[in-house]
């Protein structure tokens, strides 16, 4: 189906004001719940502050209002949360590109039923680790992080808003040069508009108070049409100029990501001595495997007796990381969850991402985007 662009906003006044960019996404969720097209909506809600994004299943459309607003300091992953705990539900889910990639790979492996799920994509320039974000706000913005009531990323800047309405902003480039800003994985990520979801929505190219939506699938189109007919959203066509601006933003971000790939996967890539030191940290706690949406096997080879080396003080990187890598690297979506959860600060994602890139160059397979399974994929492990 041909792509289609439009601008949308919620008709409900409260959703329009409290939701991001006119609350179109919240209105779509409300429509799906009200019309009993889904049993629940999986999205983020704000916990104790803006650094605390909590995955929340909303089953009553009255509660959708509590999910309004963006949270850039919440690098969550929905893929395995759905496949492990919500696979039997008719679900609508707000997806960052990495969520959509994980879900797509899980659909191909029959761990998520694509007929049961609406994927409402959110354009994403990247997210920040919550503790890093707080330190950054303290050091570079000279603001007590607990006083920030809202944050946003716009025109290359990370902008904070304080309770008294004042704003402070700093160029993300500048923050990232000093080791702050977005997660390293997000810096390297080339998928900024989730065209692997049913819809891709965001503020790039949008007028104030409107959400720019790209319709990707038939299902997404039907959802929009239904919500429009039901009086949940109003829509209009974006100007040619808006479409061009959005395209320019996307291209600039992809170029920047490629620059960062070069920096982290080549120029600053750890050398063999660095890796030896990193593998020495490993406590074989399986956190990387457990955080990986693609590691879905019921019985994991890594726990089989022939890979057991309990006698060694340090686990053999070949029979632990090496085996894990050989099982999933080709499908690595560079979500960075393995690295986020590693208690021993091993930069795992760079090695997986680097290998996947080489595989991609040879085979053309793009995990989370390509429709088919990776070439030579063996279902034996399933």
């Amino acid at each position, binding site marked *: 189906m041909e792509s289609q662009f439009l601008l949308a906003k919620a008709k409900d006044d409260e959703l329009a004001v409290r939701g991001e960019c006119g609350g179109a996404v919240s209105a779509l969720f409300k429509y799906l719940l009200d019309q009993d097209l889904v049993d629940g909506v999986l999205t983020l809600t704000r916990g104790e502050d803006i650094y605390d994004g909590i995955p929340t299943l909303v089953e009553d459309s009255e509660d959708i209002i509590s999910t309004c607003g963006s949270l850039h300091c919440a690098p969550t992953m929905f893929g395995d949360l759905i496949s492990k705990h919500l696979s039997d539900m008719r679900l609508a889910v707000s997806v960052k590109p990495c969520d959509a990639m994980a879900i797509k790979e899980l659909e191909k492996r029959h761990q998520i039923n694509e007929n049961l799920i609406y994927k409402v994509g959110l354009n994403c320039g990247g997210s920040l680790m919550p503790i890093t974000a707080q330190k950054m706000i303290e050091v570079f913005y000279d603001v007590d992080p607990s006083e920030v009531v809202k944050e946003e990323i716009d025109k290359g800047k990370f902008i904070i808003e304080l309770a008294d309405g004042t704003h402070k902003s700093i160029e993300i480039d500048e923050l990232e040069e000093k080791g702050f800003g977005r997660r390293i994985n997000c810096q390297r990520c080339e998928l900024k508009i989730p065209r692997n979801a049913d819809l891709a929505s965001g503020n790039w190219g949008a007028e104030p108070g409107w959400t720019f939506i790209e319709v990707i699938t038939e299902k997404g189109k039907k959802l929009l049409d239904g919500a429009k007919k039901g009086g949940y959203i109003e829509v209009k066509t974006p100007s040619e100029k808006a479409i061009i601006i959005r395209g320019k933003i996307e291209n600039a971000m992809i170029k920047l990501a490629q620059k960062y790939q070069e920096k982290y996967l080549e120029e600053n890539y750890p050398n063999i001595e660095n890796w030896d030191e990193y593998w020495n940290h490993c406590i074989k706690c399986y956190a990387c495997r457990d955080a990986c949406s693609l590691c879905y096997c019921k019985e994991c080879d890594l726990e089989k007796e022939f890979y057991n080396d309990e006698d060694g003080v340090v686990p053999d990187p070949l029979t632990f990381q090496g085996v894990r890598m050989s099982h999933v690297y080709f499908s690595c979506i560079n979500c960075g969850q393995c690295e986020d*959860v590693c208690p021993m600060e091993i930069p795992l994602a760079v090695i997986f991402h680097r290998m996947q890139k080489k595989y991609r160059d040879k085979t053309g397979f793009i995990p989370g985007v390509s429709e088919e399974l990776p070439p030579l994929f063996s279902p034996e492990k399933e």
Partner: protein
Amino acid sequence: MMKVAHTICPSCSVGCGVNLIIKDNEAVGTYPYKRHPLNEGKTCRKGRECFKIVMENRLKEPLLRGNGLKQSSWDAALDAVVSQIKLHPAPEVGIIISGKCTNEEYETLKKFSKNLGVENIGCHTGSVPSVDLGTATLDDVENSEFILIIGDVIKETPLLGRWIILAKENGAEIFAIDKPDETLTGVNSHQYQQVESISSIIDEIDSTVLEKLSSQSTVIISNLENGDNFEKLLTFFNQYDTKIIPVFQDCNSRGAMNILPILSDDDLSDLLEKIKVLYVVGDDPASIMIESMKNLDFIISQGCMVNETTSISDVVLPGSCWAEKTGSLTNTTGETQEISKILEPPGNALDDQNIITKIAEKMGLEL
């Protein structure tokens, strides 16, 4: 119905944040809690699997010994408890509690014992003595220039170990001491010294190491087989201008020692010999000294899990696990963190503070 809720891992004394995944009032998994400043969503395997504790060997109904342990009503169980406590003079009653309860439970139990006139009370911490010192924070560890580690901290308490790794990346010099030929902490240190026994550390330690102890250094002491060693090492390192972190065993050992007397293995065995009625809260003394319990007339066991002590008890009162309580826990660096009730306790189990209060009410005691 699914929800993701913040809590603190109850598996060790580090105090990591974890999110529990709750589905239909059952804990079915954990989810990274990246907002938590101590561990940023990182956990060890015990932390990731702590949700299993909620379901494991749970006590769901009060039990009363007749011909074997039989399910009973709360009233009957509590009446049996009260009549036995009343029957014995206060010096014959003992109360022990584990290092896994909340600060609020320690406070309630302290009041209860005081009003009852019971002096034989304490928290059993195994090898660790009561420590009354300001300990280093985790930021201190990260900013240290020199870190001396006794025990395999990186392997045993990885999320404390992580701060050592971060310090090393910041340029800190790491020195480890332990008994085995090789340890994970040793492998990740600049220097590792193997010693004959922990008690010989003070004699054997390299004098150049001691010269490096300053206000910019941290000594981490863990994994000790007996309390005397721990006390000796604390006294020894306290002479230096260094920061110290003792690694306790349970998630609230540190909180317990702020409120209640601490019992070593010897203290516990002495206490058991003095008394006739034992009230155990959340602990399992029978697993380590069943012999010393043979002369007891009556054992009351309150807690969330079936264990060796519940099986020899006369009354068993089903309590709550950490995810079913609201209160606070104090971690090994002395930081107190709140936990909130996420789940309902199973069956007829009750909140532990509520159980203590019910006993007090029946005894006619004010709390």
